[in-house]
């Protein structure tokens, strides 16, 4: 059970990470900065619970606030550029954050033991959950309350005019401007929201994994962040969840029995999916198929 809960937690955290990129993707921005925000959220929350002895919820709250602020500030220069330039600019930001934590030291002595981030040696023993006797169920519940909350908010926003505005900016920035949408404000809002969500994901990750170091926040993680919404499709939030389950559930954990062939299949399957379903696993076509299956099922029941 513990194992499945752990997998469910991982899926939850990665879904949040994917959603933070999803929001930006709606406005047409491909951002590799999400791993950076994730790292900032992780380190902030961990410093708060380990060094300053805060509770988990206020720590998560402040981590979200700080990453949101950071995303807002980064948005100004980064959103001057678009397309591939933005990809590389945000990649640069992510690397910058990684290297910052690579050099970040803040060691304090607690009960005779040194704790805190220690540069390249990492930040270990973030044991808030274990120390406070949280069971696996409780941890999973905490993570998924956040996941469901964020998914619900984004899903709801997508039903309102705000969602249509986000997508309009993503479809055609120029046209969006000429129907009265302030493109900069919309993009900044998406950037900030993405930062907040990535920060949330990071702060949960830190406590789930108990050890942070720069190896965890490389371009690879940033690539995963954008891979989820692209692989899942941006027609709605569930696509991201489906893609996370596909990658973390199937490719990473499900294929374990393949031994060292597993990671070989990993890349190949991504290529296959993109060729077969370029608009994502959970595109409108799949949605229609699911609906038709459900309808068939229902009609059979009735008759």
């Amino acid at each position, binding site marked *: 059970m513990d194992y499945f809960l752990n997998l469910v937690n991982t899926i939850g955290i990665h879904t949040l990470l994917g959603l933070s990129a999803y929001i930006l*993707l709606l406005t047409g921005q*491909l951002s590799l900065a999400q791993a950076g925000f994730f790292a900032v959220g992780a380190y902030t929350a961990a410093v708060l619970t380990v060094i300053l002895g805060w509770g988990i919820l206020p720590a998560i709250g402040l981590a979200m606030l700080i990453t949101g602020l950071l995303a807002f500030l980064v948005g100004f*220069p*980064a959103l*001057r*550029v*678009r*397309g*591939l*330039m933005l*990809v*590389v*600019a945000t*990649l*640069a*930001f992510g*690397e*910058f954050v990684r*290297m*910052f934590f*690579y*050099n970040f030291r803040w060691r304090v002595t607690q009960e005779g033991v040194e704790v805190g981030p220690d540069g390249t040696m990492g930040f270990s023993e973030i044991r808030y959950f274990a120390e406070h006797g949280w069971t696996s169920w409780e941890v999973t519940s905490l993570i998924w309350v956040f996941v469901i909350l964020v998914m619900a908010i984004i899903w709801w926003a997508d039903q309102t005019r705000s969602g249509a505005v986000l997508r309009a900016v993503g479809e055609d920035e120029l046209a969006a401007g000429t129907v009265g949408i302030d493109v900069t404000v919309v993009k900044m809002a998406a950037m900030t929201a993405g930062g907040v969500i990535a920060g949330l994901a990071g702060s949960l990750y830190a406590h789930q994994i108990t050890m942070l170091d720069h190896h965890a926040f*490389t*371009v*690879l993680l940033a*690539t995963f962040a*954008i*891979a989820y919404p*692209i*692989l899942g499709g941006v027609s709605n939030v569930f696509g991201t969840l489906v893609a996370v389950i596909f990658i973390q559930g199937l490719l990473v954990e499900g294929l374990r029995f393949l031994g*060292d*062939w597993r*990671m*070989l299949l*990993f*890349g*190949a*399957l*991504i*290529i296959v999916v*993109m*060729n077969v379903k*370029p*608009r994502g696993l959970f595109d409108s076509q799949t949605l229609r198929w699911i609906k038709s299956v459900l309808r068939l099922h229902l009609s059979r029941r009735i008759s």
Partner: protein
Amino acid sequence: MDDFWFEFVEVTQSIGDGVLFGSTYALIGIGFTLIFGAMGKLNVAYAAAAMAGAYSSLAIYILFDAPLVVIFIVSAICAAILGYLVYLTCFRFIPVHNHLAALMASVGGLFFIDEVIVHATRGSPLAFPSMFSEAYFEVGPYGIRGDLLFVFFIGLISTGVLLYVLFRTRLGLATRAVAQQDVAARLCGMSIHLTNSTTFAVAGLLGGIAGAMTAAAVGILSPVMILPLTIKGLIVTVIGGLGSIPGAIIAGLFVGGFENVVMYFRGIDERDMYVVALLFIFLVFRPNGLFGKTITRD
């Protein structure tokens, strides 16, 4: 005063080494830029395919005991084939306007090639033969590595050939036409897929040379080099201006020299940070890079 001269020699020596080494960044950058120029898409798997080319050439070198000169040629050919395969698997069948899907597919390609290499070699670093590795010229207080110089010239020659092909032959004309106006080019009877696959193969040729050059310059081939090289290549591409070949060359040499200077004064922890900061400065003050045109397709 002596101290000053001593420092001066050291620093200029470091810049020189860096610039020579930067030629590998430049070649990788050219590959990215070529493909971007032709398709408006990013082929993330490019550097991985380049290194895979070098690996294949090493395998052939060991298996058939081939002469050293063959290595560069074989590497180029293998990487060209791989480049074509990457085009076929990650770009050919994905709708033209779906940039995200193509990007993601090429990321999958990067993972796949990387893991194939690891699988074949167990991730072990392998010695890569190098030409002129014993040659070391001492000019006054400076020392120049013969093999790096050789690598640098190979880079220059292949770039020259590339530029000739692009600007003096029908193939180059087609590539540039497709890059500028794909609809119009199609109306004129050019096959987009043929041009694109040729571009991938040509970029692959160059990548194979870059891969073999990097391996020869370091002396070993290892899978841990792929990701850093990809990132450096992208940075070089952007600093040089997307789609600009001279831009990629100058940016590659420049970044090579720049990072060695930072390494000399500030050390390893800050080296990559400064390179990234340099990129930021470019994005803010020259968003189109050194030689970039205003982007119309993004």
